[in-house]
């Protein structure tokens, strides 16, 4: 099953996260009355990089954006965090 794709945009003081358009369409077709957050911004007071996001934080961001539990997300195939322009994968957790 195709994993949930979360687009990321890094900027100096943090990063913006948003479900990819295709994932939005997929989830809205599967989950009645699905109403996700449109985006999440994780802010840091100092210059930072993705290395400073620890594993549980990626999962929590995926849960916040989808409104799904960790188990539901894994049942859908897991998730990928990806930069939409160059398609660089910055983190992934695929279902076994």
């Amino acid at each position, binding site marked *: 099953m195709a994993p949930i794709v979360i*687009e*990321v*945009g890094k*900027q100096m003081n*943090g990063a*913006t*996260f*948003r479900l*990819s*358009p*295709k994932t*939005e*369409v997929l989830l809205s077709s599967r989950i009645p009355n699905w109403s996700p957050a*449109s*985006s999440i*911004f994780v802010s840091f007071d100092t210059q930072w990089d993705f290395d400073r996001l620890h594993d549980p934080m990626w999962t929590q961001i995926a849960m916040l954006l989808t409104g799904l539990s960790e188990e539901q997300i894994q049942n859908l195939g897991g998730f990928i965090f990806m930069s*939409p*322009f160059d398609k660089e994968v910055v983190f992934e957790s695929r279902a076994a």
Partner: protein
Amino acid sequence: MSRKQNLYVGRAGQMAVMAELLWRGWNVALPEVDVGEDVFVVKDESGELWRVQVKTATAKPQQTGYSAQFKVSLKQLETLRTPDLVYIFAIRSLAGWETFIVMDRSTLHREHEIHRIGSVSQGNLVLRVSQDASFLRCSERDLLPYEGDWSRWPVLPH
């Protein structure tokens, strides 16, 4: 159209958008160096900020209505930032401003990814908008919901 003429038309669109926002009671600012955004819109009391990119085209008359063509950088379209970008597509004819199409970056990105709006050429998304009495569309997608949609910036009393 010459490059010089493009600069004049682009600047006219930017000014027209700024005039509309000021009339609505929203403060606007121009970046000193143009590196992506054309206009910052600021709510004075709260400091809320919008980043606006204005694209301007001259309407080409058709048998009925007109068409207009815009180019949007794919890199800009696919780059997430907070606050996110809002595109305003301004169309001008000899008679005056025909319309302003106001669309979030994420909405245009979705229209491109899911509904294949526009065509890709040399790192840009090319949007050919056509208008008639009953429609405003691009690649068969209805743009009427975005026409003159200034709802992000309702008229503020001062």
